[in-house]
Every structure is written in C-alpha cells, then in structure tokens.
C-alpha cells in the first residue's frame, strides 16, 4: 500500500503492458502509462527485467513466493486433473519466470532515446504512488507491482497458452480451440505428400545454420533498416559460396565487393562501403553479445530461434519448423 493511502493496484493495472491494446505484442511498448514517457527508453519487458534485477535477493524470493501462489490459483481455476496439478503449476511458474527474464535490448541506431539524468529521477515509483522499501519486501511496492505485472489473469493465460503450444503444437486462447502452427511438414503429413527421406537429407544442423543466418539477416533489418548496406552484406555472406569459401579471420573484401556489385546493380559498391558495413555489423554484434552476456554459440542458438519465432509471429509459412 502506498503512503498516500491509495491502492497501487489502479496504477499497476493501467501500466501493465499485458493488458494493453495489442495483447501479446504490447510488451514492446514503453511504460508510458506509468507516467514516465520513455525516459529510460525501455520496452515493458526490459523495464520489468530491469526492476527485477534491481530488487534485493529477499524481495525476489518474496516475489517468487507470490508468483507461485498466483500460478496455483490459476491452475486451480482451469480445473486441471488433480494428479497433474503440481507439475502444471511448476511448469507455469517456469514459464512466467522465463517470460520475465526474456527481455532483449535491440534498438535502432537512430531511435536511441536520450538517457535519463539519473536512475532515481527516471524511476516511476513516486509518481505511481508506490513505496520503495529496500529492507521489507512486503512493504516494497515494487514487489507487488512485479507480481501484478507478471501474474495478472491475462498474463497467466498467455503463459499457459505458451506451455500448451510447447506441449502440443497448439495455442490455447482460453476460448476453446488452440492455434496450431501448421508448418510444411505437418501439411505434407495431412495432404499425404510427406516424404520421410527428405528429413534425413536435410539434416537438423544444416537447418539450424540456415535459420541462424536468416535470424541474423532479420535482426540486421530490424536494427539498421531493410535498405541498409549491412543487410546486403549479411545476405551475401549467407548466400555466396565463393565468399564463404574464402571467409576466415580476414574478410575477402574484394570478393564481397564483386558479389555485391553483381547483386545490387543500382549501388556502386567499393572497399570503403564494405569496410564500413562490416565495422557496423561487427560492432552491433559485439555490443549485442556483451549486453546479453552471450558467446558465439549462444548467439547462434538465439538467432536460429529468433528466425523460427519470427516466422510463427508473422504467420509466414515456415520452412522446416
């Protein structure tokens, strides 16, 4: 409860990105409605993770306890078989926690907001009427806010849906029928055209590599814009066998220039342009790895998953999901 005597709940519910207009995509909105329009330049997911990271360990433990209680109440309300209840609760908790910890920070170069002068100034708690208590987790408004943000009814419905999607290949929307991500392979099964030999030829590892390249290309578009030279550079690296053949610790700049000029006749590519794109790309990736504490293997896995998720989100037909 806030010092002012007002219930913080009304602010919390208004601020929760989960309940905002675009449903699940709303997590990308900055927390404008909490009263601090983008002063930290974070998405809702980043802000939640940032707050979580800043909580003392005891506060996190208390928040986890409350999250588990909310999950138990939710699972009870969906009438899961009694024998399955505890495993379902555990998995829902893990889903909620993974969702809380998932935030990635990718911002386009030109859209980086001005930084807040100080962290204290930027924090929205006083404006929202929430009390910050570093010692007592039960009196700390941030804990209640965090629990409400991650475990409101709608958020839990979404996490439960994620669980089911993972289990059954379907999406539960709480209203009857799940969405099923129908991929090529499923369609081949359904239509009777499925050829199991094709699976063996197309090894999983190779698929993953292609997805990772696809993910890198999409991430570059997201970061720099679709028309940027960096995107063209990534595409050449991903697709040109000659360039790949010569790629090592030194970049085959000459071959890359030739390949780019063949592909993009409208632009006169030269060494400087490629070097510039290369520098921006490596800088971006190094920064991304550093921000998220990823090594190359992690980043490859993340990019492959990103490409797969992106296809699911945009609804484009997957190529071997």
């Amino acid at each position, binding site marked *: 409860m806030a010092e002012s005597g007002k219930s913080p709940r009304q602010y919390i519910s208004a601020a929760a990105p989960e309940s905002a207009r675009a449903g699940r995509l709303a997590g990308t909105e900055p927390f404008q409605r909490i009263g601090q329009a983008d002063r930290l330049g974070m998405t809702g997911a980043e802000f939640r993770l940032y707050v979580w990271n800043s909580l003392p360990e005891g506060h996190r433990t208390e928040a986890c306890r409350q999250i588990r209680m909310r999950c138990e109440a939710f699972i009870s309300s969906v009438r899961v078989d009694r024998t399955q209840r505890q495993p379902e609760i555990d998995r829902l908790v893990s889903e909620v926690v993974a969702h809380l910890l998932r935030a990635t920070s990718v911002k386009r170069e030109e859209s980086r907001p001005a930084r807040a002068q100080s962290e204290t100034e930027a924090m929205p708690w006083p404006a929202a009427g929430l009390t910050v208590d570093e010692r007592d987790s039960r009196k700390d408004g941030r804990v209640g806010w965090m629990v409400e943000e991650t475990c409101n009814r709608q958020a839990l419905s979404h996490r439960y849906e994620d669980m089911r999607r993972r289990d059954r290949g379907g999406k539960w*929307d709480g209203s009857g029928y799940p969405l099923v991500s129908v991929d090529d392979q499923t369609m081949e099964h359904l*239509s009777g055209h499925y050829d199991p030999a094709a699976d063996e030829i197309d090894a999983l590892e190779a698929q993953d*590599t292609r997805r990772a390249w696809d993910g890198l290309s999409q991430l570059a578009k997201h970061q720099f814009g679709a028309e940027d030279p960096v995107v063209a550079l990534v595409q050449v690296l991903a697709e040109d066998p000659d360039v790949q053949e010569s790629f090592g610790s030194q970049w085959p700049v000459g071959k890359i220039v030739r390949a780019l000029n063949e592909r993009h006749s409208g632009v006169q590519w030269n060494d400087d342009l490629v070097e510039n794109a290369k520098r921006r790309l490596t800088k971006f990736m190094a920064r991304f790895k550093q921000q998220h504490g990823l090594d190359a293997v992690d980043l490859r896995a993340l990019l492959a998953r990103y490409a797969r998720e992106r296809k699911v989100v945009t609804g484009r037909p997957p190529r071997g999901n």
Partner: protein
Amino acid sequence: MPETNIDRTLMALLEADDSSAVSAAAASDADPEAGLPTLGQRVEMYIRAVYGADAVVTEEMRAAARDHLLTAMADDLAEQSEAIAAPPQHAAVAQSREQVGAYRAPASVRVSASFERVVEGLKRLVAPAADIFTMGNLRLAAVPLAAVLVVGSVWTKDYLESGLHDEAGNPSSVAQGSGDPSDRAKTRSLRLSTESTAEAKLTAEIADAENALGPTHPAVAAKLIDLAGLYRSDRRYPEAETLCKRALSILRQSPNRNDAELVRALNELAAIYRGEGRFKEAEDLLINGK
C-alpha cells in the same frame, strides 16, 4: 556432421569481436541497458526462482534453463520486430490459424476468457474517456461505458424490429405471412428461406464447376466445403460430413497442394464432428489429420 563453409562463415562472423567497439559502446551507455542481466545471470535467477534457493543444481537443469531462456529471448526479439514491421496480414493469419486446433478448454474457462475479452475490448473502447474522466479513485469511465451499452442495446432492438417492417413502417410480408403471432417463428421462416436459396445457389455452382473443371478439381472442393458449412449450420450433419469428406479426398489427391483449402476442409469436418458430439474423432482429425 562435417563443418560446412556456410556454418564456418557464420561462426567466424559471430565470434568476431570488435573490442574497441564494445568498450566504446559500454562506455557510452548509461545504467539502464547495462542494468539488464547477462544470460548467465538470468540462468541463475531462473533456477533460484523456479527450483528455490536451496535446490541442488545439476548441469542438466542449467542447460534446460539456458535453452528455455534463449527461446523466450528469441520470442521477445520476434515480438519487437513484429511490433515495428506490423504487417497488415497478421490479424488475418492469426484468425485463420485460430480456426485449426486440437484442444478444447473447459467451458467455464471459455466463458471466463470470453468475458475477459469483452471487458478488455470495452476498456480499450473507453480508454481515452477513462483518462479524461478519472478523478482520484473514482472512475467515471463507467458513464461512457454505460452509455455505449445502452445505445448498443437500443440500436440492436431497433435493428431487429426493422427486419419485420417495411420502409413505410408497416409490418413486412414476413411478419404478416401466415397469421402466426410469433415474430420469432417468422424470423426463423425467413432464415430457412435464405438458407434454401443459398443451398440452391451453391448446389448449382458445384454442378457448374464439375461440368467445367471436372469432379476432382480443387475449385469443386471449395464449393463443397461451403455447402457443408451451410448444412452444418442447419444441423444436417450427415450430409455435411459426406460433402466434407469428398472435398478432403479431392484436395488430398490433387497434384497442386492447396494448404488453405485443406485446412478449411479439416476444420469444417472437425466442426461437424463436434456438432455431433464426436469429440474424439474431431481431436484425431485435427491432431493427426485422420
């Protein structure tokens, strides 16, 4: 698996470290972004939150947590990209996907979730007004909300009544029809008449398509599915099922796959099974396509 050039190039690129860029970027960043935990830290947080602080952590648990978190992070990235790109077909695709499914939630949950969606929709509708009318703890948003409900119900009543009167305000031919005092019966009569017209039209279209394109053309299948839907809405399940199975057979044997129609046929047949209470068959159909 031997390392291929494409894989080697990818790893070389991902391993490339621009240390000067990293340090410059780090130096130029204020706290907020530097404040996000690394993957390793997230794994530790995840394990503590899910298994408890006292849990004995194995490498398998750590690997599973890492995997789960990477998937969740990819999901976040994809949603961020989607929010920027926001292709207009997204809603349509989501809707078409929604028509295919394998799991039916308990009725209470469906009702509850539907109610929540309605409430959410109304909230969004009156959100601007709510911001204006909010005074302390008193939310005057209830006023525009109530107004919307009242106007909606009056409009609905007028709309329904207008179907039973002509432009001059006299009772329509349907309402006058048989001398039956029940408007509901007359409305039903009108509906049945419309359905029989639609049925005749669709039957004719099927015949035309069969004559023009042959009985196994996918276009015929599409019409069959339409007619099956009509029969289903009229609870004529056996006829609907026969049509739908024929459509499925055509689509499965067609050399040119039409995924959208195939999904529609499967969904329609499942809906017929559901209508007949044959839930197991509906589930089998949607999960296995059989």
